[in-house]
């Protein structure tokens, strides 16, 4: 078990390293005259050169990269070129907001899609067909359209929730519910659709397994077999989809945060990239990659718990 975790952690570190290297090199090779764009058109050539020097932009790319990497491994991701704020501070102030949305949406997707997926698989018939159709539509409709629809109906017309802004749960739970419900829902609907289709499919597969008949032949009620044995066996494939969904939700959060004006990672990402604030963009890439690696590791561990054969691997 420990070796498994260590090996996965190691490959995760390698992945983060590779991603950040590629990102860094691409960003620098493609970057234009950054000092000029920071200072604006009116700045003189001398001040631009001075700015470039103070940012270290006049050094060779590789030297700059190893400098960045050396700091990055100690947790120092540099500071924003435009605001001067430390990247780690800028990111960590917002990562919680985004994670609370994405994790909330992931949890809701998992719970709701298990309920609907098992229901559709066990009942079949028209319930199953409607669930299938709805999940195809839910997967197909882009998340931001769902978000727009939710805002229009529930915030602008019905005024049940706030259309924009964000209140931390710690400072006001009711404020959090008023501001976070719609964004989480907007993210969750697509996730629910995707995971439901998978849960349904793998529950149907699992229900056809021989051991289901054998367990029922020993006098176990059908529902008990479905919820204990079938669900556990169907859980593996469903979790794999959930992992993919999580990456999708992280991306979806960028757009949803814009719509609801939520100060999360997505907002920083949009500003930083439109300004060309490379240290900040790098910080975002690294943090996102780390989040993805950690979530995948957690899901692998869950897989191992669900299916003992995986543990041997």
């Amino acid at each position, binding site marked *: 078990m420990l070796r498994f975790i260590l090996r996965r952690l190691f490959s995760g570190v390698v992945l983060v390293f590779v991603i950040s290297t590629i*990102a860094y090199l691409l960003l620098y090779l493609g970057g234009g005259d950054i000092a000029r764009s920071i200072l604006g058109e009116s700045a003189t050539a001398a001040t631009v050169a001075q700015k470039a020097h103070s940012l270290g932009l006049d050094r060779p790319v590789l030297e700059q990269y190893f400098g960045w990497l050396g700091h990055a491994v100690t947790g120092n991701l540099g500071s924003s070129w435009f605001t001067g704020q430390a990247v780690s501070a800028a990111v960590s102030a917002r990562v919680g907001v985004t994670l609370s949305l994405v994790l909330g949406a992931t949890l809701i997707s998992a719970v709701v899609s298990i309920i609907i997926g098992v229901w559709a698989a066990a009942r079949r018939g028209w319930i199953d067909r409607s669930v299938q159709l709805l999940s195809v539509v839910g997967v197909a409709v882009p998340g931001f359209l769902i978000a727009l629809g939710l805002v229009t109906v529930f915030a602008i017309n019905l005024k049940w929730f706030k259309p924009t802004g964000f209140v931390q749960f710690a400072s006001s739970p009711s404020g959090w519910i008023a501001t976070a419900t719609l964004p989480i829902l907007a993210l969750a609907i697509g996730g629910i659709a995707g995971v439901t289709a998978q849960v349904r499919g793998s529950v149907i597969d699992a229900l056809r*397994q021989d051991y289901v008949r054998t367990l029922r032949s020993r006098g176990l009620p059908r529902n008990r077999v479905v919820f204990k044995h079938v669900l556990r066996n169907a859980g593996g494939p469903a979790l794999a989809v959930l992992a993919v969904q999580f990456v999708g939700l992280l991306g979806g959060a960028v757009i949803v945060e814009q719509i609801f004006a939520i100060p999360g990672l997505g907002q920083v990402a949009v500003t930083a990239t439109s300004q060309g604030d490379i240290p900040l963009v790098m910080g975002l890439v690294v943090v996102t990659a780390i989040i993805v690696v950690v979530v995948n590791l957690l899901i692998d561990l869950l897989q191992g718990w669900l299916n003992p054969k995986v543990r041997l691997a």
Partner: protein
Amino acid sequence: MTEALSPGAPAAALRTARIPLFHRLLKTPVGLAALSFLALLVLAAILAPVLSPADPNLASLQDVSARPGPAHVLGADSAGRDVFSRLLFSSRFSLAGALVTLLVAAAIGVTGGLIAGYYGKWFDAISSWLTNLLMALPGIIVLLAARAVLGPSMWLSMAIFGVLLSPAFFRLVYAAVTAVRNELYVDAARVSGLSDSRIIGRHILTVVRAPVIIQASMVAGIAVAIQAGLEFLGLGDMTIPTWGSMLNDGFANIYKAPLLTLWPSLAIGLTCVALTLLANTMRDVLERSSSPKRRRTKAAAPAPVKREAVVRHAESERTSATLGEELLVMKELSVGYTQPDGSVKSVVNDVSLTVRRGEVHGLIGESGSGKTQTAWSILRLLPEGGRVTSGSILFEGKDLAHASEPDMTRIRGRKIAYIPQEPMSNLDASFTIGSQLVEPMRVCLGLSKREAKDRALALLGRVGIPNPQRTFAAYPHEVSGGMAQRVLIAGAVSCNPDLLIADEPTTALDVTVQAEVLDLLRTLQSEMNMGVVLVTHNFGVVADLCDRVSVMRDGRIVETGPVKSIFAHPEHPYTRTLFDAILEDGDARGALNPVPAAVAKETPSE
């Protein structure tokens, strides 16, 4: 971000598609609707310059947020531009953007998949690693980062997104190619001297064509969505009209002119849904045509309409006198499966049999003769779609054919138990053997955890497992097939059943183990004085274990009676054929199960 198809889309099955996919798609309502919508959309995009009443970028101050009317069919946006014209031109750019993504993704993914799949080796490792890398980052973050570097070009962004989506094609093609790489016809082509590129072109491309088209439809939908998303964020190229930028404008004015968000939303939503539904329908159509009746392999061929008389052998007085009361009386039982078209296909017809306490009743016949279906119907555990269509199954005065599900749950395990054919697939791989034994005992006998565990350990010992403690804690994949079958026997008898249904309990086992398992069954049967229905295709097993036997063919019993009598005077031609098969080949089915247990015991192992 990448809503990739499972690479498991059955490539070999898709190959069998003969009637053009397109024609069959048009016959399904969903396929027709999706295709028509997309055709109209493409037409509108191509004809945009002709159809547009106004220049899509022409701003007019007096028309700002104009309501729909004669001047502007769908109104005007916040800059006074004609919404209808913008919508038409947006279709152009949005579709073209999606096309760029699609082409890039398909070019990289299909080529990479073909090469990696066909040549294998190190190319495999590298490309699957790259694929994982691409899957690990949210696409939109990469696109934003790229935009920071390369500037706001829609075409470039869409091309990069194509690279990010290429794994969707890669995995699909790779899986399909590795599946056919070693097929005989590809080998034949190689032997006959065709060059690799010709083999790939002729044989392999035809296999992956259909799944690639399906995946293309999915990817196009994702591309439309992400492109609209970027433009909606205001991160696209603002100089060209797209659905996303129209949505951006509409959302900024949502309080003043809510209708402005409606049209682009509809365009984006409908396009994405149409593309995804199209992909799903294509897959359904292909799967349906390639596998008309999977999972029904156990079902017998339609039974002959003519009812022939069952050959009944007279009871010898000795047998009926020494045996106990009637446990199970099955009368003219028929089992059928509801077909997709609503008809019922019969697999068991008018089967009558009686099992007394302490008696072993063999049910013998070829694969597909309906013996297993008969066995399952006693437990009322027929696969989906199957049911008892007529007749009765009397057990302790109750008709099981019409008993309620809760009643059946109470009877299963406690009164009637079941030993399956294939030991491994009948144990749940996710739970320990012990927990699978303990759970039913706690439910059926109301034992405490402690008591159930003790009983389970005792049972494991009883069925001849050398180290019960270890097997109890083991997972199914950690024990051998013979051990697993013993575990299943222990589970079947754990709640003291009166009737045991054993469905070819030794077929999947090694010959030497078969004999031991048959011995065990015989001992347990006489110890617990159970009635047994023993399904088998092996007359050796019948001779060894059964008191009475019924021969089944095409879902009917053709001959029935005491074993001795049938062995002495087989009357029905089919019974004789079964006997002849043993004499000639050793077994009716082949090499699996050749010796009666008594002989097997004398054969030295290995």
